């Protein structure tokens, strides 16, 4: 079977090819939108034209079969037009208002989950996990599923003070948005990597390996023609492992996940914020990580009960103070919470005013 002729550097198709006519016509001329239900909204143009959007949850990891099913729906109700959101939900774009309710009905019937618009939880930004990445020290999709099975009502119905952005990263590379999420899970190691001297010598460039360590914990070991690690300095970041795989950072019994909270991306009201460490460690407990799920629910509930309308998790915490956050959530404060990395100066308290 002969292949079609390859082209190079054509880039992606121009997006115009995929825009529904109502968008083409009103491009840049939208006037306002209204959230109709947690999963539907309408955008109204200056011309008066309307575009209805139905947002559908996606596990992101999709089979071709499911994608085809969604395409069927798009063809039936949306003249074939659909899009994905930056948080990996599916958006079905309805130009003909009369098709909105039937679409929603069929989606519900087929057990698609509709929601995620407005002040609630939307999809969870996450990474590859054990599905595909060599670096993963937890599974990402599994955690997302476990967490969202518990919190799905915040996607479909319940409101929160504002949007709550969740994320999961399967290692500290954080191929997602963990560092700027309202509540997020990040996988962490807790043990110094084990060195396979023979293979280090064979596979790795020693100077690069040494240079890869942010804490200068790695020294050359001339005896073994390999390297050695100063245990006291290693903070288990795994960067050496990325550069030199025979330095094995994985330790199934002692790897696990941390929970960080209070991050934020938009510049509304307050500056974008980094997420901060809330709970330094949970053991991996597949398939459902029950303790992690409980911890997140707890944080979310305390937020929901205490934050003011429009306050994001981080804004609420900063208003009441982190000491109050730990008190209200009952989370234990540990040595790990105190920064001894690059932001130490800035995060240690420099004031005589604080709450007990």
């Amino acid at each position: 079977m002969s292949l079609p002729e390859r082209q190079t550097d054509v880039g992606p198709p121009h997006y115009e090819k995929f825009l529904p006519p109502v968008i083409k016509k009103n491009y840049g001329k939208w006037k306002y939108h209204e959230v109709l239900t947690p999963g539907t909204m309408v955008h109204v143009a200056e011309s008066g034209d309307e575009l209805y959007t139905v947002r559908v949850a996606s596990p992101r990891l999709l089979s071709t079969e499911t994608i085809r099913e969604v395409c069927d729906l798009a063809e039936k109700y949306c003249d074939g037009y659909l899009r994905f959101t930056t948080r990996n939900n599916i958006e079905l774009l309805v130009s003909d208002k009369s098709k909105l309710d039937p679409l929603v009905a069929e989606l519900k019937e087929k057990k698609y989950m509709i929601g995620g618009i407005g002040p609630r939880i939307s999809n969870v930004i996450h990474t590859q996990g054990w599905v595909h990445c060599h670096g993963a020290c937890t599974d990402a999709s599994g955690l997302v599923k476990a967490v969202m099975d518990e919190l799905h009502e915040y996607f479909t119905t319940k409101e929160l003070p504002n949007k709550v952005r969740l994320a999961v990263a399967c290692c500290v590379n954080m191929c997602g948005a963990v560092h700027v999420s309202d509540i997020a899970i990040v996988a962490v190691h807790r043990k110094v990597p084990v060195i396979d001297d023979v293979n280090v010598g064979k596979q790795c460039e020693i100077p690069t390996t040494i240079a890869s360590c942010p804490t200068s914990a790695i020294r050359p070991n001339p005896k073994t023609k390999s390297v050695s690690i100063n245990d006291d300095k290693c903070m288990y970041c795994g960067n050496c492992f990325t550069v030199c795989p025979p330095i094995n950072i994985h330790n199934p019994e002692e790897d696990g996940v941390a929970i960080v909270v209070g991050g934020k991306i938009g510049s509304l009201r307050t500056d974008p914020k980094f997420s901060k460490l809330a709970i330094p460690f949970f053991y991996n407990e597949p398939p459902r990580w029950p303790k992690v799920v409980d911890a997140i629910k707890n944080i979310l509930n305390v937020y929901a009960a205490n934050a003011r309308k429009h306050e994001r998790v981080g804004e609420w915490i900063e208003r009441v103070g982190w000491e109050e956050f730990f008190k209200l959530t009952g989370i234990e404060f540990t040595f790990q919470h105190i920064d001894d990395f690059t932001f130490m100066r800035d995060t240690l308290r420099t004031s005589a005013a604080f709450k007990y």
Partner: protein
Amino acid sequence: MAGKYKTPMLDELEKGEWPSFITEIKKAAKNNQMADDELGQLEKSFQTKRGYWKHGGIVGVLGYGSGVIGRYHSLPEEFPGVAQFHTYRINQPSGFFYTAAALREIMDIWDKYGSGLTNLHGSTGDLVLLGTTTENLEALFAEYSSRGWDLGGSGSAMRTPSCCVGQARCEWANIDAMAICNHMTQHFQDELHRPAFPYKFKIKVSGCACDCVAAIARADLSIIGTWKGDIQIDQAEVKKYAGSGMDIQKEIVEMCPTACMSFDGSSLTINNEQCSRCMHCIAKMTKALRPGKEKGASILVGSKAPIVVGSLISWVLVPFIKADDDDFAALTELTENIIEWWDDNAKPRERLGELIEVKGMRPLLEAIGMPPVPQQVKEPRKDPFFFWSEDDFAK
């Protein structure tokens, strides 16, 4: 062939309300041994709490250095279907818009050459096809590229730019985010496909400070739409919000970070000189308030994930730049100058933000011909240790 493995742990994850990725893998596994072996190897990970993938080797398509992530399994005999399981990154169309026809075409080809598993989309923005063999890469490329679907970025290259939905469906888009994203993607095709940079370089474009594509947090170059001039107020709509139960004083006026608003019970006043264009009031009262009329973008640089000196959020470089011409000439030149400075100065594996931390903002500002302005800082330096150059003395 499907159902080769017992997956008691994974089966647990088919229960519950949230759509299940396990169900997806099983769906694919019905007709695809690669997907079925993925299921098997994943169950093993869940059982043993560890991953079995090896570091990626260098694989790719002819003439390209990026777009494919090589992935091999450490137990190829046990799971032959995933012995090679590379990802093929298709550069998404700006804004993630598709027609059903286009998606079907992509899926049909993928079923032929790959695992039938996808990510829509990857965190950078690509349409990620998860799992194929080295052998099939050229065929995939011929099929896709001939139909207009090129590869996205990977490695030390320009990475696939991404953007929010912008003017296509959002009333607040101050810039044509999708057009800019598409323009950048096309403009940097060579840099995207042939890694020649010190490390990855990411561009993300959001139409306003809501930043729906997280540009400020996940892009070396963050382009964020904004405006000059007064916020447009429709007082009649203000009254409607008040009438329909919004506590304007509490929810809007008191949450305005610059305290530049006031509400007398019927009409809203904004001291626009003091407004920082944070978007809060506009976002919460979209029918009553609209951004000012002179549109443009703020350019921020340097954000990234924590490896290895801690995560960074992008820093303001150019507070306002016009971006409404069709070819985005000024924006492109600025981008090129930034990249050139980085490329000239960075060590391998040093991101733009990290380089700025080492060198300071000044050389970058000088390289792009931008003067220092207070908008670039939250506050001036505190310690009286600062450099003087001969230029400063000449002044």
